[in-house]
């Protein structure tokens, strides 16, 4: 009962963030240079036609009224029309979202699979080889811009070694028959269709982009794992466990890691902020057909409705991910669960 209440309270605490996000995206749109009405009216517009478009768009109404209007349209899933694609922004974003989710998800998996063990090994052998490797990766990983790493990986693995497939977006429909879209995630869809070669192809396309993106998230995860594990291993309860003669595996994984998980999960919120931002750069480099590359084109083409929709969608995604992180933290830490 109390747990359910805590969870409900956590969910409710995401509401102010969502409201703030909507207000800021609205204000960003209002801060646009120039007059959107003049922009839509085109070059041959007369003052009268601009005025009529302004009235049509509701731009002549007071700001609060426009805001209510904006919120009502949001609830109807209306993000406006994209000038460059000629389609509703909401439609553009939803068709492209799975590609971004697949990329970001793979990057996170990569970062966790490498970062967690690295941090654990570094913490159990402080001052030894693994610790230095960990520190090197953390320091160097934090200094390399994602887009540069992506280009270097592409150069080495595609151009020099020829191992990686052509880095031009997702699975090519020239070589593979694309699976019927069920989830939009190609890794899942190809498995549903039972098409193993296409699954391998999709994975190969995903490898370099997700590694470039994941390397960026690796540093904070490894650093936090190392620090949290060091704290846990030097604690009284670990000393007691050691004194009782428990095996070191039991101490590291059963006691220390279990307790170190909370700070590690908490750092994931920040990691998601990185991933969603760097995602834009990686998509741009690999011509990945996700929402990041879409947004870059929209910004360059001054396609404001598309940019606004993208920022809003990313922010909502981020708020929800943070909520998920909070809920996971609640699940793994009894102190958080019974707190208040």
């Amino acid at each position, binding site marked *: 009962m109390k747990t359910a209440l805590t969870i409900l309270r956590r969910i409710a605490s995401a509401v102010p963030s969502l409201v*703030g996000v909507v207000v800021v995206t609205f204000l960003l749109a209002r801060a646009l*240079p120039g007059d959107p009405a003049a922009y839509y009216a085109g070059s041959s517009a007369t003052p009268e036609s601009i005025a009529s478009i302004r009235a049509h768009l509701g731009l002549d109404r007071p700001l609060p009224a426009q805001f209510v209007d904006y919120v009502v349209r949001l609830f109807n899933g209306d993000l406006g029309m994209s000038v460059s694609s000629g389609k509703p922004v909401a439609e553009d974003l939803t068709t492209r979202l799975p590609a971004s989710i697949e990329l970001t998800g793979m990057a996170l998996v990569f970062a966790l699979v490498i970062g967690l063990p690295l941090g654990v090994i570094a913490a159990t052998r402080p001052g030894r080889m693994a610790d230095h490797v960990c520190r090197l990766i953390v320091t160097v990983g934090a200094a390399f*811009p994602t887009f*540069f790493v992506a280009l270097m990986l592409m150069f080495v693995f595609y151009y020099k070694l020829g191992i990686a497939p052509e880095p031009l977006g997702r699975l090519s429909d020239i070589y593979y028959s694309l699976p019927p879209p069920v989830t939009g995630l190609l890794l899942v869809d190809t498995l549903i269709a039972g098409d193993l070669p296409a699954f391998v192809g999709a994975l190969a396309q995903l490898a370099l982009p997700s590694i470039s993106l994941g390397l960026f998230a690796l*540093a*904070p995860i490894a*650093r936090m794992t190392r620090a949290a594990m060091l704290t846990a291993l030097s604690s009284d309860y670990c000393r007691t466990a050691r004194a009782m003669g428990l095996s070191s595996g039991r101490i590291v994984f059963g006691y220390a890691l279990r307790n170190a998980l909370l700070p590690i999960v908490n750092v994931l919120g920040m990691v998601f902020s990185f991933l969603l931002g760097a995602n834009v750069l990686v998509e741009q480099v690999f011509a990945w057909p996700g929402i990041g590359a879409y947004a870059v084109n929209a910004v360059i083409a001054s396609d*404001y409705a598309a*940019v606004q929709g993208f920022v809003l969608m*990313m922010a909502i995604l981020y708020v929800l991910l943070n909520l998920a992180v909070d809920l996971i933290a609640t699940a793994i830490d009894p102190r958080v669960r019974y707190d208040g």
Partner: protein
Amino acid sequence: MAEPAAASPATSAATASAPASLWADLRHVALGNGLTVLALVILALIVVLGLIGPAIAPWDPLASNASLTLKPPSLPHPFGTDALGRDILTRVIVAARLDLGMAFGAVVLSFALGTALGAVSGYVGGLTDQIVGRVMDTIMAFPLFVLAMGIVAALGNSVGNIVIATAIINLPFYVRFARAEVNVRRDQTYVEAARMGGNGPTRILVVHIVPNILPAMMVQASLNLGWAILNAAGLSFIGLGVRPPTPEWGIMVSEGASYIFSGEWWTFTFPGMALVTAVFCFNLVGDGLRDIIDPRRRT
């Protein structure tokens, strides 16, 4: 560190070192960590390049030469030439001023504004504190690079707006840090004494409290610089702010990227390595500075 170091006010409450031990501290850190000293030297070099770069660059950064396009590194052109036959070494050197300038500008802006906002909301508390806190929470509710893109798109595509966008997404870290640092000092005895002496709140903040939190804030700023460089370069990599033919590391990497499929690696590698070197040195020096001023936050 790629991220602005998280504020940990409690551990850094007592930060100001006595000047007498500062040199001892400096020597201790320098002896214990040669890498930090090396980073400091390289950093000084990069800053000097930023200041006098255009004067000492061997070629004209904008002069194209049709007979010299995409030449690999050679003696007269150690970093090779780009698609328009421009010398890449020259462009990398000249770009230092813009890249460092954007990062410094952004950090100074968020430092000044963040310290002021955080100090006032930490000292006054109440409604002001809540409003400032809410606004900062809202900024933090966005993935920061995405928010920066949105801000540049809204304000207009210019270098100045890249600086503003980078400053805005950094602001919450400074505000929270300053707020927490002021909050723990608000009721300390020396502040009480100043209050008893008849000083007004403005004078107490400016003369008695803020000077005490400045060292810790400077550490924040120096740890933040590398991140600001990455952020500004990322924005110009996707085509925001800086326009060709202006030399800037991010945009040079982006221009060089088109030649990856024909193997002209030098076009993107050297500007990219310039970025990495600068960020790496800023991070190391920031860490070293933190070790001197705030030893308890060493990791």
